[in-house]
């Protein structure tokens, strides 16, 4: 039964290669997109860290998004 499932009556190579290619590409794109997002979150947090305390307070007060990016970055580390 398992060998039937793998060979799929001779069509296994076509069926499995289609599914493997699809999900491999999806996995790689997911990994790269997530990595880029984390990289920018990290760079953003680093740049905020380099600001003076006064500037930092102003940025976080004026931009809700900035504080959210910082919060989401802090959650992941």
């Amino acid at each position, binding site marked *: 039964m398992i060998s039937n*499932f793998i060979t*799929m*009556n*001779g*069509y*296994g190579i*076509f*069926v499995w*290669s*289609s*599914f493997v*290619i*699809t999900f491999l*590409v*999806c996995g790689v*794109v*997911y990994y790269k*997109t*997530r990595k*880029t*997002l984390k990289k*920018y*979150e990290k*760079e*953003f947090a680093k*740049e*905020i860290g380099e*600001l003076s305390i006064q*500037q930092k307070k*102003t*940025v976080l007060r004026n*931009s*809700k*998004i*900035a504080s*959210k*990016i910082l919060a*989401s970055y802090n959650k992941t580390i």
Partner: protein
Amino acid sequence: MLNFFHNSYIFFLIEKLINFINSIFFVLLLIALSFALIFSPPDYLQGESVRIMYVHVPAAWISLTSFSCIAIVSILNFIFKIKNLKLITKSIAPIGLMFTCIAIVTGSIWGQPTWGTFWAWDARITSMVIMALFYLIIIVIHKFFDEDDKANKISSIVAVIGLINIPIIKYSVEWWSTLHQPASIKITGSSTIHSSMLTPLLLMFFVLILYCALIFLMKYKTEIIKIKKKNLKRYDQ
């Protein structure tokens, strides 16, 4: 209502949606794969090779929908000049290109056992390749133009020109004599696919749409962070 379009609200929503999709995605993927690879029956003519349809068809649907979205958003951008619309087109294009390539490659693999060849320059396949080129041009424009406004303007024009190709792809199997079979699922009129095959097909489509949403949201979030990062430079000066 206006609060809904506010950037910080959109950002908050993106975070929530990414977490939600991440939490349900793998369960749904397992269910969809079980239906596609185990529970669905083989075709009376094509045998087990019909299972390729469960990745090929959703990928083709997504690639067509993505391009239509880009073109419609580009037109809206021309009219209303909303800043967020530019980010949407920029985020969708790579997803569209990926699924167009998946549709072409899986279609080519499916072609070998059904048509006896991996490739034929038939109308459907050629028009899909042309769409992939349009996606590629849009991505390259965004990557290599320094001025955002100029890049958006040119990529929008390309997207609108590319929109002409969408009905060509859709009706190519009816207008020309092609190797590709006509559509089995019709929005208007009766479909010629059995429910035992339609269920896994729709399940796989739903899972891949969720995946697209996940990638889109992550890319959109990255674009917002890039803008905020640029804005931070003002405080440095």
